[in-house]
């Protein structure tokens, strides 16, 4: 932040600081220093005052000392030579009878972050470990961690490490926890502090003395412990039971994390623990702090992956409040979709229906998508609501409804009659390209049942010159071709016009290529065309995936109580809109987008290898596929179920924010049957260098 008159201020303050009259008056001196700090916190560069501030450090006024230290620690890195002068004062303060002054000096000595000063700091730090005041020991213990990180190469004396280990028995709980923290940092290369049986039991016994932050730290460190016997395991679990239902969400979450890592071999115990935290998690969901609510919601989503029915009875707790921010509402809807069952479906849909007219377009869209998801199991009720929404004639609602209907029909072909009936007349309100693409797909696939389909397409074809969206043009080509196959008399003329335009006038290569392909295809005869274009209208394999099978806890236990669940959702909500279902069900964009930027010649085949998986736990191909989708491995194509050998073609790509290259990995999964259970993965990894940049932009 540029600050006008910054130099003027610095000069004025320097004058004031070196004025002996100010220096002799404690209150004036302190106020001048306050002004310096205030200017510093506003972003003015105050480093020029360093030497004056060093002098101000030698004072008996603790408030002034603290203020000066704030300044010195911010600018020490710029003035390493002058900082040497501070060390003397600091070392003298370390001898002060007042423990507060001692701890202050020690803390700031280590906060200067100057490698050149390490030799002067070590001795007071060593003395600090043996100080009689707990607050000095707390600072000294962490000081060693700071020192270690400052000089990562230098080995910290083994004697110091031993002393830190012995300080785990310190009467002050904060010293104990700080020892854990320091040892974790110092021994990072060796995998952190050694967690053996005596240390574990000692820590567990003293858990109750710590405050919530200390407890969280101890619980986190203990995750590395592996109990030696089942009896010991259950002793630990029963000791921690009270923490599991703690009213403080951080403790509850840390304890559950520990439970899950301790019981990784005991799925039944893990599930029981999940049941136990239901109450505290629900309470956190109703917490006064929005952010805490959000965090709890994200973690409930994790839990639901293993126990889908966990919150079934409490579905009303996930109803949205009208003043809640959009990100909470969207999460709540995602949870509500998981909780639907025969008893609550009526109430739940009624509630979701209310959100569909939300002022926030994103929330409305999320609500409509949620209804579509429920429609996979309760199609009649949901279609009734969706059809009703079309009557509102609001463009963003209509667009979302049509997209939802397309996705629904792809999964449940039995809904197609109602959908076809509802489609009549909604093209007038559709504005955005995603919605129009969805409409075109539906018209193409179910054209024979929508009486007005040719007229609707004709309007699109007449306006194709002014059409800006690439996706709409391509979808229009396919839809017209498909409609031509079932209603040739009405469509022939407009198809000709469309192909002519696309081949002769269209500038975009993608559209042109597709039009040429269709043109040549038509030359091959109608039967060939039919074979190519009239593929499946629905995805039969998805039927199995809908009622999401309960996953083992170990799938997500690692990401529990980390930032990951909070981040995931933002990606999910962005990908609400997607292309035609038959392209890639889970890909946010139709893969046609890739072809104009990605050129085969640029893809470099890095390596191709075959991995044999000797043992595969008994599971159906479908659940395997579902599991892979969760770790962002997408399916390109697969053979129908119950055929042997069963093959899946997979791909995954890196999605880093600012990497210049992105990597696309293609793979084949081969499942040869029950007897010698094996699966082979052929990996072909392709590095899309320059060419792949375009892909990133689209993702």
């Amino acid at each position: 932040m540029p600050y006008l008159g910054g130099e003027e201020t610095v000069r004025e303050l320097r004058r004031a600081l070196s004025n002996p009259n100010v220096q002799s008056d404690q209150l004036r001196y302190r106020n001048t220093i306050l002004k310096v700090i205030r200017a510093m916190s506003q972003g003015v560069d105050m480093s020029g005052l360093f030497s004056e501030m060093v002098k101000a450090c030698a004072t008996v006024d603790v408030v002034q000392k603290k203020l000066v230290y704030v300044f010195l620690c911010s600018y020490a890195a710029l003035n390493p030579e002058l900082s040497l002068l501070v060390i003397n004062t600091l070392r003298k303060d370390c001898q002060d009878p007042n423990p507060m002054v001692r701890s202050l000096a020690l803390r700031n000595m280590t906060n200067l972050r100057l490698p050149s000063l390490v030799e002067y700091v070590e001795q007071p730090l060593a003395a600090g470990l043996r100080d009689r005041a707990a607050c000095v020991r707390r600072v000294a213990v962490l000081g060693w961690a700071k020192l270690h990180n400052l000089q990562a190469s230098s080995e910290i004396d083994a004697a110091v490490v031993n002393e830190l280990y012995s300080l785990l028995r310190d009467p002050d709980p904060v010293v104990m926890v700080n020892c854990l923290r320091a040892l974790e940092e110092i021994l990072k290369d060796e995998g952190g502090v050694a967690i053996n049986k005596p240390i574990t039991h000692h820590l567990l016994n003293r858990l109750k003395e710590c405050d919530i932050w200390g407890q969280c730290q101890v619980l986190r460190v203990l995750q590395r412990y592996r109990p030696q016997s089942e009896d010991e395991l259950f002793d630990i679990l029963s000791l921690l039971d009270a923490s599991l239902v703690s009213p403080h969400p951080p403790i509850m979450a840390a304890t559950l994390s520990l439970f899950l890592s301790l019981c990784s071999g005991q799925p039944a115990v893990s599930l029981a623990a999940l049941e136990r935290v239901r109450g505290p998690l629900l309470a956190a969901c109703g917490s006064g702090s929005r952010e805490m609510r959000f965090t709890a919601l994200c973690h409930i989503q994790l839990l639901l992956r293993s126990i889908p029915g966990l919150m079934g009875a409490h579905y009303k707790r996930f109803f949205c409040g009208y003043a809640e921010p959009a990100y909470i509402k969207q999460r709540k809807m995602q949870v509500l979709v998981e909780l639907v069952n025969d008893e609550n479906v009526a109430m739940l849909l009624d509630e979701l229906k209310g959100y569909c007219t939300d002022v926030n377009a994103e929330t409305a869209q999320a609500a409509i998508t949620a209804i579509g998801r429920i429609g996979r199991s309760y199609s009649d009720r949901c279609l009734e609501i969706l059809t009703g929404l079309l009557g509102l004639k609001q463009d963003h609602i209509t667009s979302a409804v049509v997209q939802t209907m397309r996705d629904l029909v792809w999964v449940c072909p039995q809904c197609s009659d109602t959908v076809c009936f509802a489609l009549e007349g909604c093209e007038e309100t559709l504005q955005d390209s995603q919605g129009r693409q969805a409409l075109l797909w539906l018209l193409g696939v179910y054209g024979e049942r929508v009486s007005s389909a040719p007229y609707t397409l004709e309007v699109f074809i007449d306006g194709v010159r002014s059409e800006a969206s690439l996706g709409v043009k391509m979808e229009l080509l396919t839809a017209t071709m498909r409609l031509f196959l079932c209603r040739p008399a009405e469509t022939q003329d407009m198809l000709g016009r469309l192909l002519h335009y696309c081949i002769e006038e269209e500038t975009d290569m993608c559209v042109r290529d597709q039009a040429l392909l269709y043109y040549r295809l038509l030359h091959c005869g109608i039967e060939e065309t039919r074979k190519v274009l009239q593929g499946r209208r629905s995805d039969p394999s998805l039927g199995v995936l809908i009622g999401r099978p309960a996953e083992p806890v170990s799938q997500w236990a690692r990401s529990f109580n980390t930032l990951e669940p909070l981040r995931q959702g933002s990606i999910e909500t962005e990908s609400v809109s997607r292309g035609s279902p038959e392209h890639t069900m889970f890909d946010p964009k139709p893969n046609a987008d890739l072809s104009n930027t990605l050129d085969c010649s640029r893809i470099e085949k890095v390596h191709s290898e075959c991995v044999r998986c000797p043992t595969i736990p008994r599971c159906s191909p479908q659940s395997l596929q579902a599991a892979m989708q969760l770790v962002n491995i997408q399916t390109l194509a697969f053979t129908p179920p119950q055929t042997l050998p069963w093959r899946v073609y997979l791909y995954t790509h890196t999605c880093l924010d600012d990497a210049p290259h992105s990597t696309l990995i293609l793979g084949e999964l081969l499942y040869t049957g029950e007897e010698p259970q094996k699966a082979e993965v052929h990996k072909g990894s392709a590095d899309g260098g320059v060419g792949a940049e375009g892909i990133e932009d689209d993702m």
Partner: protein
Amino acid sequence: VVCPLHLFRGESGGDAVGVFYEKVTALTGDQPPVVMSHKGLHFVHVRQGGLYWVATTTADSSPFTIIEFLNRLSALVKDYCGSLSEKSVQMNFALIYELLDEAVDYGYIQTTSSDVLKNFIQTEAVSSRPFSLFDLSNVGLFGAETQQSKVAPSSAATRPIQSSREQSDLRKSEIFVDVIERMSVVIGSNGMLMKADVEGEIRVKCYLPNCSEMRIGLNEEFSIGKSQLRGYGAAVRVDEVSFHQMVRLDEFDSHRILRLCPSQGEQMVMQYQLSDDLPSAPPFRLFPTIERDSGGRLLMYLKLRCDLPPKSLSQELSSPDQSAELKPQSRAVVWKIPRFTGGMQLSALFKLEVPGLSSASLLEVGPVGLSFELPKLTATGLQIRFLRLSPVQPGPSQRWVRYVTHSDSYTIRI
């Protein structure tokens, strides 16, 4: 947006504030996502008092801990500075630096207990409004404008906690026990109660120089869970209760007494929840009529009734202070009613010119969201029977018990 920046580990680099500011301002919508990332650095923030409280971390730390800490930190700053606003933070930046320095060392949370911290904090708070005794002594006379101020002086709520060194006799020793309930209610279009949840808490705000123990007595009929019923009167029932660690419950089962040693500042003593089973009818009911008039305008006739028992002192208000405003941005009509007594009924007729109004548009109207504050009332019926302090406080001390019910979300579908 104010960010008192403090580098604890030197991992974030100096431009972290700038990066966060850009990220926040670049986004549209009501609130940016809680977690944002930039080059491997995660920003986690909470919003309190109109300020962003941001923590940065490179490791995958516990979000529960970070968010709880940020909330706790903002509460501490509020305790120490008196109130929470951009102005008070700017005025007390030195105090906040000091607070942060004592609470966190090298990115590790050391302590957030105001009892421990008060021994270390030396800087004195600068109150944005100077605290004067004059405010306090006048409470009964002129301050009795609203229910709230009748109960406690308004300045008391925004008051820095007393540091141990300045025990001047001028400052009164006071203790506040607040019972705060948040209702979230959904009433269907047919007037049926679809959902009614209450989240309640008892908070203690203590400004007593020395108080070793206090006892809070709740209703004798207070019962937890569905099965357990106590007493002969109307039961006061909640589904779940949790207490702060420091609360001792040896007399809770028999006499419903909480024993605790309050520390200075504000703290939560007890939290409880009740779902779907309110002891009384929801406080407000709405009777809407929505139609289209001959001129193509949208007519909304709303009749709002308050079903609380009428107070004996209540007077008939002709409600001249009501106001209504159309907010085109959020497509909402805001009807403000400054005061609403029990048993009262208010009605309003809104005529809206909507371009292209069709009969289908009527379906788009709604829901109605009410936000209100009910003083001296708890939805669950929880009451504080008594409040005893020991040892008996020397000199004048004041004890305040306040009840208030907020609408967390009170939705009536049309």
